């Protein structure tokens, strides 16, 4: 087994080790136990751990994990709290993340631990009513993003907004945007960037772009780390109701309310009503609470929940389209999606069919 001994620390006999890949399989149980002893749960999505280990007894005395650009499972043994060990593992974690190609890092923490991560160089972005603080390492990234948004700011009384994954773009999405465009002076449409959906971001974006180009008061924005991303709302992509977390939804809602909406002067956010999917309906509920909240530094944003477009007795949704694709029934899809999307799906299914035959 390959261990990477990063360095000796100036703490008596403590080594810092970076563990990832296959090594992590061997270490997982030990890290999990250490976390448990300190009242924390292991996160299965962590791909890399920085661990501080006592050289004498090989006990773990501190750890911190990386799930993409999110810092998780940070824990320092009681006897080392208040020492610099936390900063030593923080340094290594930041270095690892940046060497892995990330240019920003995020984390969630309780408000009482805010100070510690401030010492790691993180700045708080939003705090939920439940005291969950969302922090960012490279605050300039957010500032740059908001700056780029401001350049697309339009004047008008009613500025609308929609966030969509469009996995894939359906007539339902088109209907929602059309309704919003009719009610508002301008509508900003934000794509979800994360590439964990069935359709690739690149393809989703193209289909939305083609599907909306005739609406001249609609501005399409590429996805970012700050809107329904792996960072702001990890649960959105997991779709496991046990992991559904109001606090994470709240963070995403607050990011929109405090930073994105003011940058563009957004006054209304549109969502489709959600009768089926629990994660989405809970998210809508939290959105309403935080966007319309009368307190807070940024002006409130009205949430308009629109009844979804129906076809053949039930609502049109992207998941319905995907289900049909899975069963390879292509004809019924035609009624649910715009022409461009249909052509894309047809091509997609044909290619995968060919691949299957080939195999």
């Amino acid at each position, binding site marked *: 087994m390959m261990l990477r001994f990063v360095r000796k620390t100036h703490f008596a006999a403590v080594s810092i080790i970076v563990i990832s890949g296959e090594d992590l399989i061997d270490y997982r149980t030990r890290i999990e136990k250490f976390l448990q002893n300190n009242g924390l749960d292991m996160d299965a999505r962590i791909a890399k751990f920085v661990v501080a280990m006592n050289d004498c007894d090989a006990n773990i005395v501190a750890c911190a994990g990386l799930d993409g650009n999110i810092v998780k499972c940070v824990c320092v043994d009681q006897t080392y709290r208040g020492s610099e060990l936390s900063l030593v593992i923080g340094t290594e974690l930041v270095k690892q993340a*940046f060497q892995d190609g990330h240019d920003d890092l995020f984390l969630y923490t309780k408000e009482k631990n805010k100070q510690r991560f401030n010492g790691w160089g993180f700045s708080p972005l939003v705090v939920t009513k439940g005291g969950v603080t969302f922090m960012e390492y490279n605050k300039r990234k957010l500032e740059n993003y908001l700056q780029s948004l401001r350049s697309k700011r339009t004047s008008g009384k009613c500025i609308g907004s929609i966030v969509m994954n469009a996995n894939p773009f359906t007539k339902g999405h088109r209907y929602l945007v059309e309704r919003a465009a009719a009610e508002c002076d301008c509508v900003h449409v934000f794509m979800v960037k994360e590439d964990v959906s069935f359709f690739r971001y690149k393809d989703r974006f193209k289909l939305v772009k083609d599907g909306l180009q005739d609406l001249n008061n609609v501005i399409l924005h590429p996805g970012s780390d700050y809107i329904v991303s792996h960072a702001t709302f990890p649960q959105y992509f997991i779709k496991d109701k046990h992991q559904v977390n109001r606090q994470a939804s709240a963070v995403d809602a607050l990011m929109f309310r405090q930073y994105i909406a003011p940058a563009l002067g957004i006054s209304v956010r549109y969502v489709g009503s959600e009768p089926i999917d629990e994660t989405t309906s809970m998210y809508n509920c939290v959105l309403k609470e935080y966007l319309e909240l009368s307190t807070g530094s940024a002006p409130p944003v009205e949430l308009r929940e629109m009844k979804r477009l129906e076809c053949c007795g039930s609502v049109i949704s992207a998941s319905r389209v995907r289900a049909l694709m899975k069963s390879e029934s292509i004809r019924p899809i035609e009624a649910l999606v715009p022409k461009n999307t249909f052509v894309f799906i047809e091509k997609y299914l044909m290619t995968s069919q060919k691949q299957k035959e080939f195999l």
Partner: protein
Amino acid sequence: MNLIQKGIAGTLESSDILVIVNPQAGGGVQLSIQSKVEKQFGATIRRVIVEKLEALGVTDVVVDVKDQGALDCVIAARVQAAVYRAAGVDKVNYEVLS
């Protein structure tokens, strides 16, 4: 000096500073500084960084620093080390470090 990759040097430990430099073609020098002592020393930290970048002939770079109360000489050392790493150059030219 021509930067070809990300360069990281320093630590978050007290009296040190963590410097991350990123080349950005034609974008000039962009600094973002977070410091425990920003109020009193923010301007000094900025001046030291700019001076050292100039001496090394680095013109297009994004620099992100987290300062934990480092002395000027430590700031200088970390900036230089991050730049050398970003340039992929091993041999230090002490004549230009000033």
